[in-house]
Structures are given as C-alpha cells and as structure tokens.
C-alpha cells in the first residue's frame, strides 16, 4: 500500500505545501508541491529523519548579558529537541563568548554541535 503524507515545508519563508508519496516499502516515491530542490530534500528528510535547528540560550557567568543565544549548527533530530533543551539548560559558560564558538559537541549523542550565535563581552 502506498501512503501519502502532507506537510508544510519549513526550508524557506514560502512555506510550500508538500505531498510526499511513500511506496510499499516506505521509500519516498514522489514529492509534489515543492518549488525548489531544498523542498524535495526537506520532504525526504521529514518522512525518514525529521530534523530542526534548535535555538535557545545558555547561562553566562560574567557577561554583559546573563544569557547568550545558541543554536544547533546543523539541524538536530526532532525527537531529541527536548533532551537537547535540557542539556543546554544545564550548561553555564564563562564570558567572553565568541560567535560560532562550539559550546557542546555532538549534543545528546546527535551529530549536531551547539554553538554560540553572538559575541558576548565580559563585564
């Protein structure tokens, strides 16, 4: 039995409505509704291994702000996002922080690094 799944592409602000057809073995046989190649690859990833970029803050000691924004450098498995948010919550770093600085390697056993997304001076 083939199966159809519908969702909104989040790759860009257009937000195309995608329809993905899976064949009997669960493989993607068709992607419709996308306007670009990013959409097609998002569709494939979304049915097999959905991922999202995680963005939050970490606590900072001695910085101009008490928290510094961070993100996962690459999209992380969607199912791991809460675990990642807890791991990031436990972290406290010392100022100064540099943009792009890796704060957690391979967070929660995923292949995504948590990096700082701004410079934060020390006070």
């Amino acid at each position, binding site marked *: 039995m083939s199966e159809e799944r519908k969702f909104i592409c989040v790759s860009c602000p257009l937000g195309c409505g995608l329809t993905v057809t899976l064949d009997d073995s669960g493989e993607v046989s068709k992607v419709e509704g996308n306007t670009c190649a990013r959409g097609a690859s998002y569709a494939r990833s979304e049915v097999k291994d959905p991922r999202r970029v995680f963005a939050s803050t970490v606590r900072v000691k001695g910085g101009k702000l008490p928290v510094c924004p961070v993100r996962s450098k690459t999209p992380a498995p969607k199912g791991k996002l809460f*675990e990642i948010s807890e791991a990031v919550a*436990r972290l406290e770093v010392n100022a100064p922080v540099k943009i792009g600085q890796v704060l957690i390697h391979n967070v929660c056993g995923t292949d995504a690094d948590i990096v700082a997304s701004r410079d934060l001076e020390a006070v």
Partner: protein
Amino acid sequence: MNYDIVIIGSGITGASIARELSKYKLRIAVIDKASELPAGASRANSSMIHGGFDDKPGTMKSKFCVKGNRLWHKLKDILDVHLDECGSYVCAFNDEEVKHLEKLLEQGKANGCEGLEIISGDRLREKEPNVSPDIVAALWSPEAGIINNFEAVNAMIESAKINGAELFLETQAAGLLLDDKGNIRGVSTTKGDFTAPIVINAGGVHSGEIASWAGDKSFRIIPTKGEYYLLDRTTQGFIHSFLFACPSKAGKGITVLQTAEGNLMSGPTASEQEDPEDRSTTPEGLAEVLKGARRLVPKFPVNMNITTFAGVRANTESGDFEISALKSPRGFINAAGIKSPGFTSAPAIAEYIAELIKSELADRITLSPNEKFIPERRNIPRFLYMDMAERKALAEKDPSYAQIVCRCETVTEGQVLEAIRRGARTITAVKMMTRAGTGRCQGGFCCPRVAEILSRELGIPLDEITRHGGESKLLAGKTKEPLLNRKGAVSE
C-alpha cells in the same frame, strides 16, 4: 505605633486631609492598602476640577466644590501640579436641555461660581470645531479645569510627608480600637495596631464598611463603576476642554475631555455593583461610553485608543458627601462617600475636617500651628516639558537625565530614580509618579527597563518586582529553571 491622628485611605481626600493637618503639630499616620498612589477612585476618574454649578445649593458638595476649585487654582503652583485651566462646557441638544442650562447657570450663581455664561452652539464650535453640529447651546464655566490626578495625589501626600506625616502603604485597616469608655483608641491593621485618639475615615468606596465598624449605619456606599477610554496623545487639540452632556439621573453622563497631559478621554458610565473592588471594563460599558462620546464629538477617534479602564466611585444614597464627627465613638470622623466632585472638593473638605476637630474634638486633641510648615513641594522634574537649555543643564548635573526610559512620554532614568527615592516600589508606582508607561505603548517598551532599575536600586531580584504589589509579579523565575526542575529531567 502611637499617633495623634490616623487617616484611613490615601486617595485625594485622605492625602489632602493629611496635608491640611500637617499644618499643625501632630503625629499623623496615613494608611492605605494599595502599593502605590493613587489607587482607588482617585486613580480612575475624569480628573476634573469642577466649576461648581452642578450641585444643589446647601449641599456639602456645593459648598466644598466651589471652595475646592478656588483652592486648586492656588495649590497647582504651590504643589507643582499640572492643572489645565481649560474651562468646561455643558452641551444642550434641544430646547428642554437649554432650559436645564439656564437652571444650572442660576444654581451656579447661587453657589458662588463666576464667569458662567450660556453660549450658542455656533460659538462653541468656533472654539471646539469637533463637537456635534446638533449642539444648540452650551454653558461655559471658565473656572473649571482638568488636573493631572496622579500628580495631585502624590503631591498632596508628599507635602504632608515633608511636614511630618507618615505614609504606610500595603497597610489595610482591619477594625477600630476602642478604649474602655467606648471611644476611639486607634485602628488595627494588617501591619499591626496604630493608636490615636482620632481616626479619620477616608476609605473611599470602603468608607461605608469602615463607618459601620464605628456603629455608624446612617449611610450606605453604592459602589458605582465608571468606564473610560483613553486615547493617544497625538489626539491633542482634537478638543481643548471638558465637554459634558446634560446630566441625567444616572450621573453627569458621558463626557469627553482632553486630559491635563493632552490625551483625549471619554467616560464614565455609572453602573452600580456589589463588589467595590471590581474595576474590570465590560463590553456594554465601553459601548455606552463610545456612544456617548460620539454624541458629543461625532468623529471621536476611538481607533487611537491606548487603554480602557474603570474606576469605582463611592456613591451614596443621599447623593451627598458624608462628613461628620461621630458623637460615639468619640474621635471617629467620616470623610466618606466622596464621589464627584470629590477631587475638586478634597482641599476644602480637608480644611473643614481641621475645623471640625477644633470645634468638636478639642477635648481629644489640640491643634497648635506647626510653625515649620512648608507649603511648597516640587514635582519630579518633567523632561518632556523642559526647554532645551533646562534639559542640557539637568543632564550635565545628573547624567541619568540623559537616558530615556519611557519613549512615549519622554521619561528619563533620572525621573525614575527620583520616584524610587520618593518611595516608588512597583512598576505602577513609577508610572503614577513619572508617567512612564502611560503612553501609547502602555509600558511595552519601558516596563522591562523600569523593572531593571527597580531591581538594581532596591537590590531585589528582577523576578520579585511587581506590577502593583501583592501577587502581581512580572516574571515567573529564570529561564532554564523549569527545564532543570522538570520531572524526569536528566541530572548531571
């Protein structure tokens, strides 16, 4: 804590009494359950200084309103309070209402009002082009004005404090203390007992309940809600004064006015309710205000609304104020049922209370003049209204005046710091004292900044700062805490 006089309630009535009595050598305590002033009806009203033509000759209202009006015109400079001496119009839409204007004119003359005049609708529209073309005549009262009520209450109580009175906020009266002869010995409160031979009930919408503690059941307070629209200050000049419709049984009706700060405003409704603390606005009330506003000012630009609010006024069955010194228990004075024109009347009521103490309670306390009484009080500097030379000089002297905290009302950090020095502890207190947060963004910009300054200056964590005391905390702890405290969260 021992005092000569305890005043329950620090609305405009209580604050004015405190200031008046601070002209004598007395230990005065003013208690109020609120976390900032003004709180009750003194915060949410039309901020009108009435001309005094509206009340029947012989009533307490008529007596105190005209006198209070005259006092405010002097006090505005002494206390550095913004009073727009703009005058008021009562508008008539038909012949019958014109007859009512004539009646008001005569009544006003009898009350001692000056300069009252009935003008044609066309002349009104020359001065106020945005009023309804259907208005045929208006009663002009040049003595009427519009006061900044936030400033006025704070000015009164500050002046009283300068002269020795003590203010206790977040202190709610719980009952009266009587001596073994059944006379007044003080007030019990949520913060302990305040003893004094004289207790003054200026409890506003709660004044009926407080009077009943003294066994005085001679009057009943009917909490009456009034709802309002307040518009952006860019509406300044849409009208320039205070417009009444002809009064009905329900009250003076919906008015349209320009506040002392230049905002267009309209209200109030008059709906009686049980709960003296219910200050919620209602769809029906707001619709009624809008209808009334559009009747007077057809193009009332309600799309420029920045907030709606409601006040609860202390109406009485008699319709008049309830001011007296009780025979029993001796030492208990009512300054109760003070509703419109209460703000106007307050300084005159205060003088009367002092006379009442002299004439009727001389056995309990002697009023000897306080030679050190300082009448003047200066407001927190208002950056918005300064010229550039003044601003430069102030910023040079104190750099905190070169930092804007509230964009809408151009309030500087220096003003917020000064408000904190003068006792502000909450976001709303800073708002009442500096106007930070009263503008078009209603605190969206300045609230976090004011909270930070309060936190820094008072040395308390940001998440302990409240909007208006009690449980009104702005924030719910730090980020990360909910995650770290979550059940099943993986610990390190």
